[in-house]
């Protein structure tokens, strides 16, 4: 006969304790492990590096310094800034945002927009080397503005008093544009994109014109598609969570080469409630503090992010120097034969893949 006591066998069922208890005990465990103490945050040995992250350097131009420029704003000097603001409004539909008026009546600074494009403007200040085109007898810089209806805007500007240099016409690079000079001497190139920019098409159309189109080979195929890029205003931001988000952010900056754009901490100074880490070649990662009570926060180690860079090798070297766990050593994947990709885990287990996916040009 069987032992009746065998009936007592009871495999236990998982049963979480009270939430409050779970949270307090977790804090005790973390503190007892010394993990909340800034001194005992696991440190990584950082490789020597310059302030300029190599990740942003294109492989064919290793001496080009990186830039984090995301926007260029023309700053116009005009003789008669206040009148110019009025004229730009009449001719281009410019909207003045504000002006800074000097005691002598000159505008020290003003800002206006035309559509989504921003401009700055000031009066001539010859005493500090700010002459206007009127004083110089011309301008070497054209203001290239992408517009949605070039003919109408061109006509409007000419009606307001602009001088036509070249009337709007279709161009071999897929835009229709015209060039005019405003009454203050600035040259404007109003350009309406008509079709997708394509270097091969441009090259073909330019045959016999006396000009040859030569690709630099240093930039991605989209480099010239400014109009298309300007239209693409959306974006996807990735989120990644760390138990010690400040350490995580320091890691992302020092080892991978992200740049801090914004880091917002909570009242305790350690909880990161919001951050924006910019990848120099494009994209934002939001690193935050993992909180089991936050439904948006996946536990560290449950996330995987892909970062596109023209120079995975430099990131790989820094990852190796930092002693990261390697999930996949650098290799050229089937789908990107000329490219390079690798995957590592950061200190809290999040998976990071870096690759030159699709960045190769011919």
């Amino acid at each position: 006969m069987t032992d009746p006591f065998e009936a007592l066998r009871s495999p236990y069922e998982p049963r979480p304790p009270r939430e409050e208890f779970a949270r307090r005990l977790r804090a005790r465990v973390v503190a007892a492990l010394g993990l909340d103490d800034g001194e005992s945050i696991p440190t990584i040995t950082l490789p020597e590096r310059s302030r300029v992250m190599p990740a942003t350097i294109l492989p064919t131009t290793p001496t080009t310094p990186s830039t984090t420029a995301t926007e260029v704003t023309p700053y116009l000097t005009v003789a008669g800034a206040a009148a110019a603001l009025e004229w730009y409004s009449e001719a281009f539909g410019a909207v003045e945002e504000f002006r800074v008026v000097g005691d002598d009546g000159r505008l020290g600074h003003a800002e206006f927009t035309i559509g989504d494009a921003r401009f700055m403007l000031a009066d001539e200040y010859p005493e500090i080397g700010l002459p206007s085109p009127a004083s110089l007898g011309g301008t070497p810089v054209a203001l290239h503005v992408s517009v949605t209806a070039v003919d109408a805007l061109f006509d409007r500007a000419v009606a307001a008093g602009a001088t036509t240099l070249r009337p709007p016409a279709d161009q071999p690079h897929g835009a229709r544009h015209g060039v005019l000079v405003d009454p203050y001497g600035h040259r404007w190139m109003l350009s309406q994109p008509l079709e997708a920019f394509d270097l091969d098409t441009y090259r073909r159309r330019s045959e016999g014109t006396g000009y040859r189109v030569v690709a630099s080979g240093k930039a991605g195929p989209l480099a010239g598609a400014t109009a298309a890029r300007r239209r693409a205003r959306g974006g996807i931001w990735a989120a990644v969570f760390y138990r010690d988000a400040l350490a995580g952010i320091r890691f992302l900056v020092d080892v991978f080469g992200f740049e801090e754009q914004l880091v917002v901490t909570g009242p305790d100074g350690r909880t990161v409630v919001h951050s924006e880490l910019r990848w120099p070649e494009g994209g934002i990662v939001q690193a935050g503090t993992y909180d089991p009570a936050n439904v948006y926060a996946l536990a560290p180690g449950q996330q995987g992010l892909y970062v596109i860079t023209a120079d995975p090798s430099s990131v790989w070297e820094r990852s190796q120097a930092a002693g990261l766990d390697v999930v996949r050593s650098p290799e050229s994947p089937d789908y990107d034969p000329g490219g390079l990709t690798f995957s590592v885990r950061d200190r809290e287990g999040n998976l990071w893949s870096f690759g030159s996916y699709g960045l190769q040009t011919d």
Partner: protein
Amino acid sequence: MGSPDHDVGRQRWALVDLYDRALPEVHGYLASRCRSDALAEELTAETFMAAVNAVKRETVSDLTVAWIIGVARHKLVDHWRRQERESRAFRAIAEPVDEPANDEWDVHLESMVALETLAALGAHHRSALTLRYLDGLPVRDVAVHLDRTVGATEVLLVRAKAAFREQYEALTRESGGEQQ
């Protein structure tokens, strides 16, 4: 890969990971064996703080759920030992000397009554029966946990079962009486 410091930090974080993963298991295990939420929480806390110390001493090779349940089992036994020491003064000094004549007991145990029976037993009997039957450990493992020889453990188990049987039958008689 990585410096020793780096690995130590990693294992500490791994324990925090294990906490997040295994807390319901550890608490569930303890709650099912000590029948008091307050005690289950106390022992859950003791279990994880012991795990912290083990990780700090770098004596843990594998941070698994099975390992932390083992730690919880130790904490449970430690608790019973304390209880046994405290209650020793009130217990009859002499264990029944006579071995029960017949170890065979043909009955289908009612689990609720059985748990109540266990709770009513002395800590030494309860711990032996729990480890042997609820946890299903072989006698030699029960002996290790209770820090006794296998022979002494076998004797203890026989006595514990006799005490259990007596208590169980008393309880079923009572409840039978209520039903009438």
